[in-house]
């Protein structure tokens, strides 16, 4: 009868963002454990709360099958002495040895019978290492120097195979069949005895919802109840919802409110205070404006006397008062009066201050007065109390203050946007001045960091240079400027770095196949909008009947030219020896691509396929006569160079190669 296995690793509260990666690791580790030990079965599910990581396996056998292991010994030619030695090593007498033949000759061997171990024994032996092998971003010891490390102290373990406990010990904790319920709501202070079958039910009775998805649904349903009958809605925030699922075992949302007067503060500030400092959802009115409400998610079942609500409201009030205080103090010194202060704000110790940075950036913004003014002020918010307190709001605060202090809308918006895009998903600055400033700022960071040798390697990228380069690429492609990337980059290793980012952008953000990206990039990548248009055309034409076969021919042409080390020459139409050559030549010369879009051009080029096929079917390029051979090579070279301006088709991976 197949067995189930349940493991619950009981810990103190694990940081929310580490939990899912740990579950992924556990799933892989268990799959490997089963395979390595030749046990049937599979991981049925994994799930977690902040205090427990849970894995269930199903379909396990009672034990491993008995097996035979063949251990090879010395060659038979080595004689009896060697056989004796080998037998001794195996703990047997020479007559128990056998021989096997391989392509290298005949060898002594010993067929050792292995008795399969019970599944519980295999698990008990492997689990301590498996559990301690979970890779955490930052772990700790708690029993003293040199003791095992884990993300937080391990306090209990449930390990059940069928109805039996799989016994092992880890960091002084013995595995068992009991688990504590919710810290405060559990019906009993003592741990609860569970079986595999009743595990989730027993925990639910003790106010622990084991499944993260069920907790998410509980939060969503609770919010829907709270807002039913109003025109309010929460500001959707998947990352916050995820966090809340993993800092609670029994989540229950509550609705709180704050005084309307705080709505006079910038919405960005209010949302940041609620979101980042208090983990609250903001609440929006039907018109999308902020309502004076918030939703907090408790790790308990109810708030009968309103203590939790009023407590949270009071904390939020204090936070908002702080923000208001910062806002008022900051206005006493406008951004323009803070420029000099930037001399004391280090950008990077070997690069200099933010003051130096804005001087460099302004120097390239000569043709756009708005961008230039925005540049002068864009880093001044780093000296404000608001940004010192809420660092995520850098840029946004500068933009809001600039507007409040009478700068033009174009300048304010450019400042507000100039850190954009913050990710592949984020939008680019909305105005040309903002795009120019963002571009110049990011390019300055990249050039300066590369100049002093701060080049990202592997996972090390402390100045987020990949993100900066990605931002440059995104702005050039999606924005309204017509700058060419390579005109803006003066450092060779930075050029190579950018080429990687361009590839990454088209593959990951635009979903182009990597061979199409290779094919199009070969024909130039400085004009990124042009590259984007060529890739779109390529993607559209690729599925058509003639395209891939033609691409395969181009690959063949490339190989032929490379083998012949042929670098070009004139076509002599009088030296054609075959009609297929003449046909191909006339098909090529009559193909008029002028004035056509990339897609139409590619479609026309694809019509060359029959002529190309016929050519290869009929003639041998490497003809014995040098003149004919030379002419054929010239024809192919011409074909390739003439029609590879949109993309190098030979880079396309086709089924025939």
């Amino acid at each position, binding site marked *: 009868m197949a067995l189930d296995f349940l493991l619950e690793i009981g810990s103190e*509260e694990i940081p929310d963002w580490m939990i899912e990666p740990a579950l992924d690791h556990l799933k892989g580790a268990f799959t490997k454990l089963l395979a390595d030990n030749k046990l049937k079965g599979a991981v049925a599910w994994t799930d977690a709360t*902040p205090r427990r990581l849970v894995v269930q396996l199903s379909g396990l056998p009672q034990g491993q099958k008995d097996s035979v292991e063949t251990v090879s010994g010395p060659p038979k030619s080595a004689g009896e002495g060697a056989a004796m030695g080998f037998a001794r090593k195996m703990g047997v007498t020479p007559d128990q040895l056998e021989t096997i033949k391989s392509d290298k000759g005949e060898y002594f061997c010993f067929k050792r019978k292995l008795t399969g171990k019970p599944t519980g024994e295999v698990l008990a032996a492997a689990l301590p290492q498996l559990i301690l092998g979970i890779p955490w971003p930052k772990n700790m010891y*708690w029993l003293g120097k040199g003791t095992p490390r884990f993300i937080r102290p391990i306090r209990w373990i449930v390990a059940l195979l069928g109805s039996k406990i799989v016994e092992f010990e880890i960091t002084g904790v013995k595995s068992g069949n009991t688990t504590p319920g919710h810290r405060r*709501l559990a019906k009993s202070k003592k741990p609860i005895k569970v079986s595999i079958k009743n595990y989730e039910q027993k925990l639910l009775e003790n106010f622990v919802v084991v499944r993260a998805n069920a907790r998410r649904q509980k939060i969503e349903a609770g919010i829907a109840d709270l807002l039913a009958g109003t025109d309010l809605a929460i500001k959707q925030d998947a990352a916050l919802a995820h966090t809340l699922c993993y800092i*609670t075992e029994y989540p229950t949302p509550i609705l709180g409110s704050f005084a309307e007067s705080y709505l006079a503060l910038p919405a960005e500030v209010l949302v940041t205070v609620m979101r980042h400092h208090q983990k609250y959802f903001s609440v929006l009115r039907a018109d999308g404006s902020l309502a004076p409400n918030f939703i907090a998610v408790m790790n308990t079942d109810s708030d009968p006397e309103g203590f939790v609500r009023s*407590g949270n409201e009071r904390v939020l009030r*204090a936070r908002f008062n702080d923000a208001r*205080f910062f806002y008022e103090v900051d206005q006493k010194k406008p951004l323009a009066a803070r420029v000099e202060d930037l001399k004391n704000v*280090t950008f990077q110790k070997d690069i200099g201050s933010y003051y130096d940075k804005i001087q460099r950036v302004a120097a390239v913004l000569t043709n756009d007065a708005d961008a230039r003014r925005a540049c002068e002020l864009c880093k001044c918010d780093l000296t404000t109390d608001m940004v010192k307190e809420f660092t995520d709001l850098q840029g946004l605060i500068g933009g809001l203050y600039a507007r409040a202090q009478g700068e033009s809308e174009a300048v304010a918006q450019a400042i507000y946007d100039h850190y954009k895009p913050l990710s592949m998903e984020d939008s680019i600055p909305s105005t040309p001045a903002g795009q120019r400033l963002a571009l110049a700022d990011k390019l300055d960071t990249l050039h300066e960091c590369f100049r002093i040798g701060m080049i990202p390697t592997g996972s090390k990228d402390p100045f987020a240079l990949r993100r900066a380069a990605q931002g440059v690429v995104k702005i050039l492609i999606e924005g309204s400027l017509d700058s060419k990337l390579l005109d803006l980059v003066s450092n060779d290793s930075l050029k190579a770095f950018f080429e990687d980012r361009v590839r990454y952008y088209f593959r990951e953000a635009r979903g182009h196949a990597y061979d199409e990206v290779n094919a199009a990039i070969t024909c130039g990548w400085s004009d990124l909008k042009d590259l984007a248009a060529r890739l779109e055309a390529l993607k559209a034409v690729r599925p058509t009947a003639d395209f891939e076969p033609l691409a395969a021919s181009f690959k063949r042409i490339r190989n032929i030219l490379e083998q012949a080390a042929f670098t070009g020459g004139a076509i002599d139409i009088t030296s054609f020896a075959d009609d297929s050559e003449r046909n191909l030549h006339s098909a090529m010369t009559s193909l008029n691509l002028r004035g056509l879009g990339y897609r139409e051009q590619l479609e026309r080029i694809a019509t060359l396929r029959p002529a190309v096929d016929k050519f290869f079917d009929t003639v041998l390029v490497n003809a014995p006569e040098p003149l004919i051979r030379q002419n054929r090579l010239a024809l192919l070279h011409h074909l390739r160079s003439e029609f590879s301006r949109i993309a190098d088709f030979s880079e396309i991976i086709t089924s025939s190669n």
Partner: protein
Amino acid sequence: MDSYQQIILKLKRYWADRGCIIQEPYDSEVGAGTMCPETFLRVLGPKPYRVAYVQPSRRPADGRYGENPNRLYKHQQLQVILKPTPADVIEQYLGSLEAIGIDLSKHDIKFEEDNWESPTLGAWGIGWQVMLDGLEITQFTYFQQCGGIDLDLCPAELTYGLERLAAFLQNKESVYEIEWAPGFTYADVRLEDERQNSVYNFEMADIPTLWKLFDTHEGECQRLIDAFRAIDKDDAGSRARFPVLSTYDQVLKCSNLFNLLDARGAISVTERVGVIARVRKLAVGTAHLWVTQQQTSPEVAA
């Protein structure tokens, strides 16, 4: 409703009942309870220790002339060190909240990741901020390293923010409205301290004098560290009687002067890292002295 002092007395009683020595505040300016020798030095080495004390903690830059209801130049922490950490440390901690009248069945408690680090002390730990109805009331840290030294035992450090806790329990919007003792508010006891020290810290502290003091204390500290290092390897007696604790007092002076200079705006962002490194060097040096001294003469250790 318990007064502020009643809350403190109950917490001290609670931890005394769990085997803690009840210490009094350290008599030198510190930025946090962690900096007291009762924590910084005692967490080092293999000897178990349990202690609880209230420590007034000075953060000059947080001063607000007594005008902000929640920010203080000097706030009070209840610092608890449990070395080694008992397995039921969280239950014990939650019990302490119940001991001061927080009915946990009617409130929301969460443990949110918050790792603590003090670059000036070369110290760090792993832990949480404990949130009560959205208010951070305690920093809970499993100490891992102190003075750059891996800790033999792994102490738990519980730091309660006493003003916040009292304002919460007494339902006050401002810390100054907290009832300290019957008939006396927090403002009665401390407001003048906040006002006058804000004036001094932000406006009147003489920067050249502070730098001179910093250099003097740094020099004295380094002189002592060097003197200890110069002691002959076999001279256990001289090492055992060496004033490591007095050396550490010089570290605390430097740390406080750094905070004052910082509040005064005398340290540019560029200089900051360098000054922190100077204090850290002294803290790390003294921690090593302490460990060496403890190893040479176990009878000196408390």
